[in-house]
């Protein structure tokens, strides 16, 4: 019997069967694809976190312990690829005499590097001038001493005579914070800033100069073992990788019996990446779960569209003696066929689009497909079986007002969603809490409730609106449709009123699908926009020309750059260092009237004022200055307060006091570091210091031909400056925003959202109309013209489209706002507003309208053409 039923099902309703399997296939493909995204993005995050560490481990050799034995222990530790000893020594100060003046510095750090160190740890040292085959000084040290390659520096030693070295290069130490960490000390005991004065010596020279001191003052001369770890062997998940690395470091400490303390930079980087991994999971839930739910709802709607026919078949079988148990088995077989077919198609689709790379997720998706099929195919059919058995009228079910509507569930859900949103806002939407160094990580998943409840609530509200419009507002529907339906308008309004439950449900499905697509697309567009802003923030502009130390470029030097074809604007940006109390901060001198021509300043960069208001405040007085929030707190500043900074004078080369007035707070600024910095008027800074030197030229190309324009600029500036582009910055920015690579997820999500929206419209309308093709055939049989039949048949799709589209777009926009707010932690910097992906939105609506229109036309025309056959079959 089961086999006969199955064959009959395939023969008589192949479209319905395939459509239901198609719904399951969408859910399976989506879950498999998203799982694949999650796994690959986590692996990417681990690799990226590992790749951006300059020195994986800095193993401090304890005083009076043998560096050789520690080196041996580190070298033999599992996962160690390279281990080299590095000497650290403290110097009371450095001195250099250049251009007739002598400069002295305060305490300095001297490092002894083994041969090939710069090649082994390429991220630790960046050569700015000269080479590293001898004594090299850090950039700020070179600035403090006014030395360039070829100059000599005197290095003082505690209790020993000083020695002289000839500088062969000037370098930048990009990760000076971790390089000069106090190994093994807690975070609060770490130095506030890396040392200002650093000199790097070859290991042989270091040993010569400090061997004696190491014996007499071991507190001043120490050894670290710098280690490169095997990144390829790390677990793909950042949390697991963090646990593995921490375990390995602890193991080393135990094996060396306290002779070694591990500064686990790799572990720290992985520790930070755990937060990004959690955000990836959050994105998976936020963006994937609604899609899978929608696909399930779509399958349910498809199944429901054939409910009438199924009830008739069940009644017939019952009348012919089938038992409820036999009918239940048939229902389960149908669900199993739909689930298995959907699972296979879904995994096939995922494989074709290259989104089925994780077999655990593939299996989970297939099992989920079977469960969804059981839920949406078998459960309603089994429920119908009870109603058939009880002789309950299908019509009684059809016209009963849903319970949720009577209890106002839609309003309750929306209110709850807003309440959760408000509560999340009080917590500044911090969804992920990853305490530094602690293996556990907490994710505030309950914040998902806000958009989830709002999404469901808006869907139900859409249902209520459609229901109310069709029931109480049918005169309005009749009036509005009169231009298209003529005398039939009132009759059609009455017809829709009686079908309102089905029509409203279709409208809700279209609205939810569109809302999902709109919110996903808007979130992704905003995300991309912010990634672009992040890249521009890092690079400064489309193209930047950073002048070499000592180049002394003036604003006039921007003219040759401005003349390059493709350059739209060039803006000089001063870069100085200023002492705020004892704190050395970056100071940027700008022209507030013209800075916006070359770079984008977002409102989020400033605090308490918009970007344009902040620039206006800067313009308001020559000595105006914007400072960081941290500085405001540290120095208890109030707006308008006079502050004194120490800036280097061009003539005397000494730091002099310059007065400014604090006018506002700046959090981010193009090219500026993440920590404290200052922004002032360039003219005032130049006037006060006697130096108009430009640090960087910000170049706008309007976003076009960035690399070719950069190439031309390189040929113009030659060796006087280095040219960076926004394209380079995209690959370098390491914020949580970009470390979760959304590009694959975006493509997957947008494609599925479009598919679901089109399928929701097309399939639900098509199958629903197919169930009601009897009415179209009767209208044809009664002599209605082709035009009349088309308009008569199109009334339902038109209503569904109108309510579904309006409801979906408005819900989607609202959800986008909630999503972007709740996921604030993903963005860096936070977006000022939503970015509308107009092209996608237009395509989305067009595809939905086209799918609905096509489905309606096909069904109507088929019913019209086969009216004779259909009328005989009734």
């Amino acid at each position, binding site marked *: 019997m089961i086999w006969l039923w199955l064959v009959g099902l395939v023969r008589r309703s192949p479209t319905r069967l395939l459509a239901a399997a198609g719904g399951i296939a969408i859910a399976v493909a989506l879950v498999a694809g998203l799982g694949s995204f999650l796994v690959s993005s986590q692996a990417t995050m681990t690799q990226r976190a590992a790749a951006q560490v300059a020195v994986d481990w800095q193993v401090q050799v304890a005083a009076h312990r043998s560096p050789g034995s520690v080196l041996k222990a580190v070298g033999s530790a599992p996962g160690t690829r390279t281990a080299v000893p590095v000497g650290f020594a403290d110097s009371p100060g450095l001195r250099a005499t250049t251009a007739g003046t002598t400069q002295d510095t305060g305490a300095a750090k001297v490092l002894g590097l083994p041969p090939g160190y710069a090649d082994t740890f390429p991220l630790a040292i960046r050569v700015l001038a000269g080479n590293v085959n001898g004594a090299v000084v850090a950039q700020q040290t070179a600035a403090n001493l006014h030395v360039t390659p070829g100059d000599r520096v005197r290095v003082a030693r505690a209790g020993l005579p000083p020695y002289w070295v000839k500088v062969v290069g000037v370098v930048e130490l990009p990760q000076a914070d971790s390089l000069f960490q106090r190994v093994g000390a807690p975070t609060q005991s770490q130095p506030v800033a890396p040392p200002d004065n650093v000199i790097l010596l070859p290991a042989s020279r270091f040993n010569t100069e400090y061997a004696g001191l190491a014996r007499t003052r071991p507190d001043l001369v120490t050894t670290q073992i710098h280690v490169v770890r095997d990144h390829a062997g790390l677990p793909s998940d950042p949390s697991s990788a963090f646990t593995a690395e921490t375990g390995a470091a602890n193991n080393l400490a135990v094996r060396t019996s306290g002779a070694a303390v591990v500064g686990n930079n790799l572990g720290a980087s992985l520790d930070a990446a755990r937060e990004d991994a959690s955000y990836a999971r959050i994105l998976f839930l936020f963006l994937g779960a609604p899609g899978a739910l929608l696909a399930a709802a779509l399958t349910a709607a498809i199944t429901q569209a054939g409910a009438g026919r199924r009830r008739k078949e069940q009644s017939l079988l019952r009348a012919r003696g089938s038992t409820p148990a036999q009918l239940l088995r048939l229902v389960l077989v149908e669900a199993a066929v739909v689930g298995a077919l959907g699972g296979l198609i879904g995994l096939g689709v995922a494989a074709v689009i290259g989104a089925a790379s994780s077999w655990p997720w593939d299996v989970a998706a297939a099992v989920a497909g079977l469960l969804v099929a059981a839920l949406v195919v078998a459960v309603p059919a089994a429920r119908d079986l009870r109603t058939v058995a009880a002789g309950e*009228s299908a*019509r009684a079910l059809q016209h009963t007002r849903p319970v949720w509507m009577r209890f106002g569930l839609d309003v309750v859900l929306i209110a709850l969603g807003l309440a959760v949103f408000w509560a999340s806002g009080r917590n500044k939407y911090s969804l992920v809490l990853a305490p530094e160094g602690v293996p556990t990580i907490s994710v505030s998943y309950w914040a998902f409730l806000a958009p989830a409840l709002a999404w469901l609530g808006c869907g139900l509200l859409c249902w209520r609106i459609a229901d109310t419009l069709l029931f109480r507002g049918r005169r309005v529907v009749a009036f509005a449709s009169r231009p298209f339906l*003529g*005398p*039939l*308008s*009132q*009759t059609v309004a*009455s*017809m829709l009123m*009686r*079908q309102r439950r089905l029509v409203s449900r279709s409208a809700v499905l279209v609205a939810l699908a569109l809302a999902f697509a709109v919110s996903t697309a808007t979130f992704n567009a905003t995300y991309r926009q912010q990634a672009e802003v992040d890249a521009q923030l890092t690079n400064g502009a489309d193209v930047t020309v950073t002048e070499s130390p000592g180049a002394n470029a003036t604003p006039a030097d921007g003219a040759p750059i401005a003349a390059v074809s493709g350059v739209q604007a060039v803006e000089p940006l001063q870069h100085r260092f200023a002492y705020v109390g004892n704190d050395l901060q970056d100071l940027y001198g700008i022209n507030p009237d013209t800075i916006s021509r070359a770079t984008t300043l977002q409102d989020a960069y400033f605090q308490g004022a918009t970007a344009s208001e902040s620039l206006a405040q800067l313009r308001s007085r020559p000595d105006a200055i914007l400072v960081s929030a941290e500085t405001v707190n540290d120095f208890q500043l109030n707006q308008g307060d006079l502050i004194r900074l120490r800036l280097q004078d061009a003539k005397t080369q000494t730091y002099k006091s310059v007065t400014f007035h604090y006018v506002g707070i700046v959090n981010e600024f193009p090219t500026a570091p993440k920590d404290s910095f200052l922004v002032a008027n360039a003219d005032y800074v130049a006037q006060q210091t006697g130096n108009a030197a430009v640090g960087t030229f910000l170049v706008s190309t309007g976003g076009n031909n960035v690399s070719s324009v950069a190439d031309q600029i390189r040929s113009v500036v030659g060796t006087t400056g280095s040219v960076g582009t926004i394209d380079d910055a995209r690959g370098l920015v390491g914020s949580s925003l970009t470390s979760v690579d959304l590009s694959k997820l975006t493509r997957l999500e947008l494609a599925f959202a479009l598919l679901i929206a089109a399928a929701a419209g097309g399939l639900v309308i098509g199958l629903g109309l197919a169930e*009601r093709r*009897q*009415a179209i055939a*009767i*209208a044809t*049989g*009664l*002599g*209605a*013209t082709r035009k*009349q039949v088309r308009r008569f048949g199109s009334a339902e799709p038109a209503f569904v489209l109108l309510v579904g589209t309006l409801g979906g777009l408005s819900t989607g926009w609202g959800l986008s706002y909630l999503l972007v707010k709740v996921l604030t932690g993903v963005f860096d910097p936070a977006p000022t507003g939503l970015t509308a992906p107009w092209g996608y939105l237009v395509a989305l609506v067009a595809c939905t309208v086209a799918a609905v229109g096509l489905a309606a036309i096909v069904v109507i025309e088929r019913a019209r053409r086969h*009216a*004779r056959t259909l*009328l*005989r*079959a*009734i």
Partner: protein
Amino acid sequence: MTTSAARPLPSTHGPELDERLVVCDRASRTFGHGSLAVVAVHDASCAVTARSRVALVGPSGSGKSTLLQLMAGLDSPTSGSIVWPTWETGPFQDPSRAGVVFQGLSLIPSLTAAENVAFPLLIQGLSHDVAIAQARESLDLLGIGGLGDKVPEELSGGQAQRVAVARVVSSRPKLIFADEPTGQLDRVSGDRVIDVLLDAADHLGAGLVVSTHDATVAARLDVTWRMHDGELVVAA
């Protein structure tokens, strides 16, 4: 039960009683091509006048419904001809020329009985209020005025079929075709439907052709045409 007793239909002025409304001349209808071709109607020749009360009988699949649809203009013959001498074109798409009572329950499920009856009138361009009033009048005439606000699901098979007849009557056609109108009804309900059809045809002065495989139904009509394997045998 809201059904009221049917009022006797007053006779109205119609076409000349002997005027031929539809003439079939060796009309054939073949479905499919080649070896799959099925000849549903073969060389059928007949004529229907306003006086005609015809029972078209024959077993299932003999071609009754196809011939009925050909005469109603719902379908075209593949050979031979069918003409409607009174009109320049076929009666299809003009409910005031010919009305068809379909085989099964042919009411639009989500419309009330009155709206179903008014539907052909609305197609013709009558305003909603006028069409509904006329529909209620037709329902009253057939003694089922009380069913006007019910949807088909709330009607019995006989009631639904009488509403379908009322729908035909409301357009006041000159030709009424009924395709197995009692096929899904019990004897009593079937008799009532035939009563209504005969009264309506008399009232409108319309020709009536009823296809049926029920000899009792056929006996209530004036003439019986027999069909067998697509061949029509018209009684003299």
